Structures are given as structure tokens and as C-alpha cells.
């Protein structure tokens, strides 16, 4: 699961000046024809760099995203919910693997990516820096955070880089179970006892602001995003994804008798756009830069897993084996 709001590197005005104009034209023509780019194709440095960054952030989000939900496996109500949540968390980690592999075809090793995650150099989806206080929080994540991620992933699966598209198609197919499972859990609480309803409402209240942050701030129209759109690296603006999410899910939240903690939230019937209170982007920045409630914990847990698993990898290491960049 992953939202928009990718942190792309700012582009220098000269970024394309060093590229071979003939190869660049062929590359762009291929994208214009609707053909995918494959790992062995020539590609501009900027394309490679931005894709690595985007796919890597996505992969980290899957791995870190497994933590707040993973917390609830042992305390999920009943055998069936435990089984399902365990399967879901396993899927998320599997998605991380698929995405690391896709990024790896662009030339950055999986180990370097994990290293950059743990050192804080790479980012992941901001929403996972918030804690899951109750079972209802876990239900909110399974349904609505995954729903937000699907909006973004479906858009990106139509992008131009073959290995990323293939990984996303596989991921989207699996996400349909997550979405249905999460919805099922929320329905159960929202239509349950008074206490269950209160718990669900409290979770919606807690998660709404991070959910609005999830898609990232409004994209400024820039040369930068224009070129990423042209190369089909970025497929939809953050605002488009947010609007699509609101359109699909606000009615589904309301029909369960739940309220959303934003008095200004309504659909403008004339423009067809949702109106809402502007999210607090200062908080978004603060949290993404390390000062959220769980940033430290998430990275510490990853680091300790990496360090404690070291001896296993050491034992498995075959010194004669040769690393080869994956093909596709």
C-alpha cells in the first residue's frame, strides 16, 4: 500500500542537456506509442533516478506498512480474523519484495535500498508513522489506507516502466482481498454494539488527517512534473488521486453511520469536486522529516530485525556465488 506524494528529486535545468538527443527522441517515441520501457533499453539518467526513487519508496512503504497492522495479528478478534490479517501482512511483505526487485532492475541493489531506509535517507509513506491504538485502527488501515493505495497503484500500473507495471498488476490483484477484508471488518464494527461503533468512530477520527495527507500536497505545475508526466513516471496528480478516493469512499463511510471529522467536507455538485478543510501540511512535513509519533520505532524495529538476522544471512552466504541483476 502506498499513497502519492512521492518525494521526487528536484530537477536541474541542465538535467537533459547531456543526453544523446537521438536516443532521447527514440525513447520518447516509444513511450508515445504506448510501449513499455524494459530494463535493457536506453533511458535518460533522470528517468532512471526518479523511477528508482519512486519504486523504492513504494517498496519501503509495504515493509513499514506491515508493522502497524502486524501488531494486531495476535490480538485480532477470533481465529478467522487472525488468519486473514496474517495473510494480508504476508502479502504486504511480498509486495515489498516484488517492488525491490523491480527497482533492482534499474541498478540499485536491494541491500543498498534497505540500508537507505534504515539510515533515514529514503522515505516511505507518511501514514505509517502513526500508531494503531485499537483493533479498529487496524480495520481502518486494512480498508481505507489500502483503498487509497489502490487508487494510486492502479494509476501507476499504467506507467511506462515494464517491471514496475508487472509488479503493480500482481499487487493490485492481491489488494482486492485486502480491501474486501478491511471493509468487512469495518462493517462488522460499525453495525455492531454501541461500544464497537464508538471504537470505529474513534479510529476514523484519529486517521482522517493522516489519510488526507496520504496523497501528498497539491502538485505545483512545474517543468519537473510535466516531464515526469510525459515520460509516464507520474500518472496522476496528488489532487486527482485524493478526489478519486473521496468520491469512492466517503459515501461508503457515511452509509455505515460513521461521521468524518471535517465540517467542510462536501461534494460541490457544480464542479463535481470534493471540498474539504486544507490539511495541515506543516505537520505532514514535520512527520515525513522524522518527527512523527512512530518514526523512531518503525526504523528501530527494521534495524534490529536486520541486525539480529545477520548471522542467518552470514551462514547462508555462498562466497562463490555471483550476483546478477534480475532480468525483468
Amino acid at each position, binding site marked *: 500500500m502506498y499513497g502519492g506524494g512521492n518525494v521526487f528529486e528536484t530537477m536541474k535545468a541542465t538535467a537533459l542537456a547531456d543526453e544523446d538527443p537521438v536516443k532521447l527522441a527514440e525513447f520518447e517515441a516509444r513511450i508515445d506509442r504506448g510501449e513499455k520501457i524494459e530494463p535493457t533499453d536506453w533511458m535518460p539518467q533522470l528517468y532512471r533516478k526518479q523511477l528508482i526513487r519512486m519504486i523504492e519508496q513504494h517498496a519501503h512503504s509495504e515493509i513499514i506498512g506491515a508493522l502497524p497492522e502486524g501488531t494486531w495479528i495476535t490480538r485480532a478478534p477470533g481465529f478467522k480474523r487472525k488468519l486473514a490479517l496474517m495473510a494480508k501482512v504476508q502479502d504486504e511483505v511480498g509486495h515489498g*519484495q516484488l517492488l525491490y526487485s523491480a527497482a533492482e532492475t534499474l541498478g540499485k541493489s536491494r541491500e543498498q535500498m534497505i540500508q537507505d531506509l534504515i539510515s533515514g535517507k529514503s522515505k516511505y509513506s507518511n501514514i505509517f508513522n502513526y500508531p494503531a491504538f485499537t483493533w479498529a485502527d487496524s480495520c481502518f488501515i486494512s480498508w481505507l489506507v489500502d483503498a487509497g493505495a489502490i487508487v494510486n497503484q492502479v494509476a501507476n500500473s499504467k506507467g511506462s516502466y*515494464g517491471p514496475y507495471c*508487472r509488479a503493480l498488476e*500482481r499487487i493490485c490483484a492481491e489488494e482486492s482481498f485486502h480491501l474486501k477484508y478491511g471493509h468487512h471488518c469495518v462493517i462488522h464494527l460499525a453495525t455492531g454494539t454501541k461500544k464497537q461503533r464508538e471504537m470505529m468512530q474513534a479510529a476514523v477520527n484519529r486517521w482522517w488527517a493522516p489519510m488526507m495527507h496520504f496523497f501528498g500536497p497539491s502538485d505545483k505545475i512545474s517543468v519537473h512534473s510535466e516531464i515526469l508526466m510525459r515520460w509516464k513516471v507520474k500518472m496522476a496528480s496528488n489532487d486527482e488521486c485524493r478526489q478519486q478516493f473521496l468520491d469512492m469512499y466517503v459515501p461508503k463511510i457515511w452509509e455505515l453511520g460513521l461521521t468524518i471529522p471535517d465540517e467542510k467536507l462536501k461534494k460541490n455538485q457544480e464542479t463535481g469536486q470534493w471540498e474539504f478543510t486544507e490539511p495541515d501540511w506543516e505537520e505532514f512535513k514535520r512527520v515525513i522529516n522524522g518527527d512523527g509519533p512512530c518514526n523512531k520505532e518503525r526504523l*528501530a524495529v527494521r534495524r534490529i530485525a536486520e541486525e539480529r538476522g545477520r548471522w542467518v544471512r552470514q551462514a547462508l552466504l555462498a562466497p562463490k556465488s555471483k550476483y546478477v541483476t534480475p532480468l525483468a
Partner: protein
Amino acid sequence: MLKSLDPRVNRLNLPEQFEAPMASIEALDQFETYQAFVQLKEGKPFEHAGIVHAPNEEMAFLFAKEQYTRRGMICNALCVVKTESIMVSEITDNGQDVYDSFSGSFSEDDSASFEIFHLLKRGKQHKYIGNVKAKDFEDALLASKQLYPRTKPVYNVWVVRSEDILMSEPEDADLWNTLKEKQYREAIAYKAADKIKAFKEEQA
């Protein structure tokens, strides 16, 4: 000490701040990569599913089984090949058949066996086409060009020596028999429309 809502995290006794940066993991984990191919139903061609990192072929098979065949209601067979054992042709685009760039004669020597995979559309998976007998990779490509007539352009070809493939045995097919019992992994197991309807009627 780092305080968490999760008792399991608290039991790890993690420091509030690590004193030193983590030691580099770069050299430690560079396992070999393997390409995994999956056959969903008997008689269907194997398709490239993705890659796994593993310390050896058998672990690669296990990882691939978990990664690429734990979901879905059916699977019939799985195979893995070390990435370095795959000979990759050039890649073409815009309706140009990659086989057009291979020509010449090839030797009668058919002492080795090769498996051929084609990419029929950029962005899709490589699909298994068939087996050829030849002397080496180059001859295998030429033999494949002759043996498998094409109606559509092929953009990329992978050639693998048959002996380099680790394939599940037909009797292993029961590895995937449990998939049907794992309905809880499928969206279809979570129907709730009736519950919403009942709730709405109750509220009305």
C-alpha cells in the same frame, strides 16, 4: 528505552537512539538471483512470474513457491532458473521481430537441449514456447526461428539450457492442493452487502 504501544516491541528493549549507524549490509546479502516461471493449469504455457534472491536453487524454488504461488485458487507447476544461466537476446520495439536480426546456418549438432521463451508484448511476461535441440545458445536461437513460425513479432527471446532448470515434478502438484482451502485469502470470502442493507433498513 523506546516506548511502544506494542508489547512485543517493548520486549526488544530498543534504545531511544542508536549510538552508531548500522554496519553496512551491502556485501553480506548479495545472493544470486533466480527467475521464476509459473504454470497455472496443465497444458498452459509457463509464464515468467518474477525473480527471487536465494543462496541456492532449492531455496530459490521455496521462495518462489511462497512469493508467486501462495495466492490464486490454482497452480499446476513451478520452475526456477539462475539468472546468469539465461541467454537474453536483443530487445526490439514497434512491430520489429527480433528474429529478423538472426540469420545464417546452424550446425547439425543437436547434442544439447534448450528451452525458449518469447516476449510478445512489451510490458508483459515472457512465455514458454518450446524446446529445441542444438549445439549452443546461438544455434538454439536459429533453430527456434526455424522451428516456431511466428504470426506476431517477438520482441525478446530468452534461451535456457534444459538442464539448468529446476522444475517441480508432476507428483509435486499436490503442493498447491491447499490453495482451494485458503479462501480467506480471496476477496470473494468477504461478502457483506446483506449486512449493510440490514443496517440501513434498521436505521431508516
